[in-house]
């Protein structure tokens, strides 16, 4: 399912712009170097001192900078999350997205330029999906023992995820295109965007709803499950993965390996079921 996330998101990322970025910054850089040269009175034209701002323009256009920045921000966010003893409100994905988003906005860097570097991390979604086989094989007996509950929860959860959006859309008076774009929000991004596109929704908007749903689920799931007194990590994880796909699965792995595994299974199954049922309801 995550490969579609990849292809799906590259749709959102204008790939041509990525190639144009070095050209634009090259011109800007040249302009600033010339400015520095003028200030220095034209002496040592080729060796003009590199201004911090031109350094920023140079670095912020390299994939290396945004790749490193993403890793550093993630490590800091994880450290903060550990300090908070894994408190659900201190979600490392949410913190990283806010910090990097602010950095890009303040630094005047366009998303495609950021993605040039971050794509190397994004790419790992595919192998990470394949990697789910390892905990699956380790816990194969537990998975088989929970087969019936999983199927029942899958049917109930997938239908609820879609129907609740339709009901809320009517309640809040959403335009039809908005409701369609939101209906597949609990499935993984690539699949959700494909469903939305096929039914006349806006895939870009769907991607935003998918991310917001993932973060919402990851933040609320622990408190909700504790309040409901659910102690079965298979059940908790399955709900997290079904309602909030990969970001919920990441949260589940943060809490417990069994929860993480069942979240991963739920994410995969819900992607398939959502694709089947959304067209039935719309």
């Amino acid at each position, binding site marked *: 399912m995550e490969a579609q996330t990849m292809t799906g998101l590259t749709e959102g990322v204008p790939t041509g712009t990525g190639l144009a970025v070095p050209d634009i910054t090259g011109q800007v850089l040249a302009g600033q170097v010339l400015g520095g040269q003028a200030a220095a009175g034209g002496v040592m034209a080729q060796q003009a001192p590199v201004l911090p701002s031109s350094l920023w323009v140079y670095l912020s256009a390299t994939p290396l900078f945004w790749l490193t920045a993403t890793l550093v921000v*993630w490590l800091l966010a994880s450290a903060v999350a550990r300090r908070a003893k894994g408190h659900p409100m201190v979600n490392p994905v949410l913190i990283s997205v806010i910090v990097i988003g602010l950095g890009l906005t303040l630094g005047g860097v366009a998303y495609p330029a950021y993605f040039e570097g971050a794509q190397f991390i994004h790419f790992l979604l*595919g192998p*990470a999906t394949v*990697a789910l086989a390892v905990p699956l094989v380790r816990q194969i007996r537990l998975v088989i023992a*929970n087969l*019936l509950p999983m199927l029942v929860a899958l049917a109930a959860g997938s239908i609820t995820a879609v129907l*609740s959006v339709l009901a809320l859309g009517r309640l809040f008076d*959403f335009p039809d295109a908005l409701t369609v774009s939101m209906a597949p929000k609990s499935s993984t991004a690539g699949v959700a965007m494909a469903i939305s596109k096929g039914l006349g929704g806006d895939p870009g908007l769907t991607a935003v709803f998918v991310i917001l749903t993932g973060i919402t689920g990851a933040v609320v799931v622990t408190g909700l499950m504790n309040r409901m007194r659910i102690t*079965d990590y298979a059940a908790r994880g399955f709900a997290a993965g079904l309602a909030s796909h990969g970001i919920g699965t990441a949260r589940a792995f943060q809490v417990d390996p069994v929860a993480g595994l069942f979240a991963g299974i*739920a994410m995969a199954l819900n992607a398939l079921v959502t694709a089947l049922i959304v067209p039935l309801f719309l």
Partner: protein
Amino acid sequence: MIQGITWLLGFQLVGEALSYAAGGQVPGPVIGLALLTLFLLTTRGVPAAASMEQSTGKVADGLLANLGILFVPAGVGIIQHLDLVMSMGLSILAAILVSTVVTLVVTVWAFTFAKYLEQKWKRKP
């Protein structure tokens, strides 16, 4: 480490190839996941596969323990649509919050209730 990464990418590659051949209905990584699961299950306990199992396990554990970072690049993409979300106001966020909470509750309730019934039937055949 390199061995483990190679196995994961290899299974994804085979998955992508089969996905393409089958018309792209099921994503390649999901087919790769199914194939690796079958492979690991059938080679379990075979001495010749021990090193592959160990290296793949190490990389897989590392990736899954840090799964969150893989969603950061896509998550940051929200900034492209921020004005749109803002302009549509709180009703969007409210709808997402309510729908997500209801889905979590119904799913976990269905799961535990089905498990409860199943165990009850097993005790009284």
